[in-house]
């Protein structure tokens, strides 16, 4: 697993988290800059899913392949579904859904890293 990519995902997720929290505090709906930040995280997650799957195929680590790959590709789904669910209601609650989605990405990312590290 690419450590640089992991940190990029975490860093961009934190930036997006801060943007969402600012929206929540000000009670305003998330605008284009926030969704752009989410899109950047999503692109990184897609790259990670592809590179991670390739890395799994080429490693001799003792990793549960099914679990690892399902984590890799589940993370990719979180933000699109979260954004969709959030946009259906343009209120503070809708914005809070983005917070839930981003925290889920961070949690899954940490878990993904430990899955990879345990096998090493």
């Amino acid at each position, binding site marked *: 697993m690419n450590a640089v990519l992991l940190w990029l995902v975490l860093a961009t997720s934190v930036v997006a988290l801060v943007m969402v929290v600012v929206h929540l505090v000000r009670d305003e709906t998330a605008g284009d800059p926030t969704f752009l930040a989410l899109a950047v995280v999503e692109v990184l997650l897609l790259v990670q899913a592809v590179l991670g799957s390739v890395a799994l195929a080429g490693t001799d680590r003792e990793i*549960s392949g099914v679990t690892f790959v399902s984590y890799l590709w589940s993370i990719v789904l*979180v933000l699109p579904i*979260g954004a969709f669910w959030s946009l259906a*209601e343009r209120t503070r*609650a809708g914005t809070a859904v983005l917070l*839930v989605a981003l925290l889920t990405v961070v949690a899954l990312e940490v878990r993904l890293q430990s899955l990879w590290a345990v096998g090493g």
Partner: protein
Amino acid sequence: MGELSSGPGRVLVAVYAVFAVAATGRSLVQLGTDADRAPLAYSLSLLAALVYLAATTCLLVGGRRGWWAALVAVVVEAVGVLVVGTLSYVATDLFPDRTVWSHFGQGYGFLPLVLPVAGLVWLRRTSPARSR
């Protein structure tokens, strides 16, 4: 969209959905790979998954029936996390492997303990008896 899944309910549905997927994935992997290792723990993982799926669905469906079904699911969830959480401390031999509810959901930031409380508060606020 129903009244149960808007406002704070929308956030609740999001969190329940995450737990539904997480618990389902966990129990499928556990039961699929090594079911004999910890039958009780894995059955409880499956129960947790079903409870989270039920709660998510009921909140989404809404209405009077959805409300009552959601109440049952959330109460089962609350009892489950308390019983399994306690047992995982006092009867460790029963749980050779973890479930979502082990140690009051420690592996999930204790959210499994907070979630049923949030669910009950939300159901109280949206009670059909109250709106009449």
